[in-house]
């Protein structure tokens, strides 16, 4: 009985969302609002249990301080009770930055919320430089250094070099350079076409999945 009710509810919501294909309507608006509300709430709870609780409160020992018994001592207990430095104390900096982020709600000191934003953008940019440079530049260059002794290698090398020429911004696309850039964009468009077809196929399988739910699991018309 439970599954009949939940399947019927899921089917109504599915139909409600699909009804947008016809036009905007009250059922879609209801499903949209429900989806946004539930998902926003779910993400809030998920963020709390995935980040705030284990990484900040547990590591610092705040949950232990508040009387939780199934949690080990945190950095604060190690520091003040045992007199030991605990590297988890560094999470305090993250906590302070998080609080500073919320200060935007206080107009007089709202400017302080820019500091954690600057910290996030700057540190992440530096952190990703290495990984992006390794995977998107170095490895690709290494794998493109090939002998021109097969058609595949020729396509790979010409496609890569002309593609880079297209994304070279310091020179106008004119003459031979423009011709090479044009070859580069042809390569890109062929790639996009292949990718488009591939992704449309995967989207069709998603649609089939929902139709299978509606006509199979819910209505029982497809066995």
């Amino acid at each position, binding site marked *: 009985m439970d599954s009949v009710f939940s399947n019927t509810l899921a089917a109504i919501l599915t139909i409600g*969302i699909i009804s*947008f294909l016809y*036009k*905007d309507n009250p059922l*879609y608006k209801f*499903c*949209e609002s429900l*989806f*946004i509300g*539930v*998902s*926003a709430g*779910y*993400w809030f709870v998920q*963020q709390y249990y995935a980040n705030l609780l284990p990484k900040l409160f547990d590591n610092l020992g705040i949950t232990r301080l508040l009387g939780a018994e199934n949690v080990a001592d945190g950095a604060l207990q190690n520091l003040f009770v045992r007199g030991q430095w605990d590297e988890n104390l560094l999470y305090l900096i993250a906590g302070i930055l998080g609080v500073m*982020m919320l200060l*935007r709600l206080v107009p007089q000191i709202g400017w302080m*919320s820019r500091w954690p*934003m600057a910290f*996030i*953008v700057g540190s*992440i*940019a530096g952190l*990703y*430089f*290495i990984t992006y*440079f*390794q995977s998107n*530049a*170095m*490895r690709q*260059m*290494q794998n*493109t*250094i*090939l*002998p*021109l*002794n097969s058609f595949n*290698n020729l396509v790979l*090398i010409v496609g*890569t*070099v002309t593609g*880079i*020429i297209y*994304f*070279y*911004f*310091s*020179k*106008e*696309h004119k003459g031979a350079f423009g011709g090479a850039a044009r070859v580069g964009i042809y390569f*890109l*468009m062929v790639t*996009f*076409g292949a*990718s*488009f077809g591939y*992704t449309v196929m995967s*989207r069709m399988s998603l649609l089939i999945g929902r139709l299978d739910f509606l006509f199979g699991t819910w209505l029982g018309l497809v066995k």
Partner: protein
Amino acid sequence: MKAFSHSLISCCLLGSILLATTDSIAQVECSDSVPSPLLPPSEVIAEDHPGDAGGAIIVRWKLSPDEAKRITGYEILRSTSPTGEFSSVGFAATGANRYVDANTEDSLTYYYKVVAVDVNKNASESELSPPARSSAQWFNFHLLNLLIIGGLICGAVIYFIAHAKKGKKLFLRRIAGLEAVDEAIGRATEMGRPILFIPGILDMDDVQTIAGITILGRVAKTIAQYETKLNVPTSRSIVMSTAMETVKEAYISAGRADAYSDDFVHYVTDEQFGYVAAVDGIMVRERPATCFYIGAFFAESLIMAETGNSIGAIQIAGTAMPAQLPFFVAACDYTLIGEELFAASAYLSGEPKQLGSLKGQDVGKIIAMSAIVIGAALETIFAISGSSLFGSLAELMHKLFSIVAG
């Protein structure tokens, strides 16, 4: 004569049967014999894993002579004392001659043994390794090539930024989609309809989102001058905060601080398709004249671009997500492809830092193109002539761009 031939055939058959029987007896005897003892791996060496933050030791050994015949793998045993109890820390597959023990304490000394294991679970233990201790290094020499090439590009970026700061003009080629930005904002103003700006669905830790927010700043400044309505739904709270600051600054710099409203930028939900449902709803109800999709996108790209197309909006997209670009190219009026997105950000802002960065990256592209062309030429000459000189040079090119895991 016939009888003789029959006898001959019979003799041959009998002989064959006898031979086969003897062979099978020999085989049975062979399989019943006691197998030779399993030979252990030798020359076990343990040493600190280089170029890391400590906490790892590499164990190397010479394969067992029985490797090809019987070995199924090698068990790695560890102890903190040469005479103490050894416990298993991992298993290496057959053919492997190294194992990284990534669970060591830098303050302790470890001893290792490698045990060859065969199909019948017979084990043969190696000699003890010399003592080893893990430690942290300041520099990872495996990534020296990365430092040199990255340093060259960063040096070029710094040089061009300094160049731009001195007021010298840096040339950047036209980017087609950008010229449409002012036209699209003007159209929305004429029609009296809002402009929708979607900064992607990833957080501020993604460089595409940063580029999207930079472009939003430029778009918002023009919008402020035209007094058009702006709507920026976001799927991340930090993006919302950053976008708010950016739009506010744009309005202030346009001299229209009074026209700014916090309602221009609002949070919807982190959930990907919940966000799409909301954006689609906004599109069909507010009917924006212009839609910008600038940032990182996933499966929602086509849904949003198709809805925007159905309401007749001018659409300008920009993303570096290869899988989503085809959909934007198909459904939007203009698309900033890959790095054009970052170039657009620099082009629009005109800031020395961004312009210098872009010019510096162009130096990186020259390095990449040159390396590929020179490397491919060396490989081709080597393949044709077999010259060891060209072979060595081609290998050197490979090494220059190889990333060694350690």
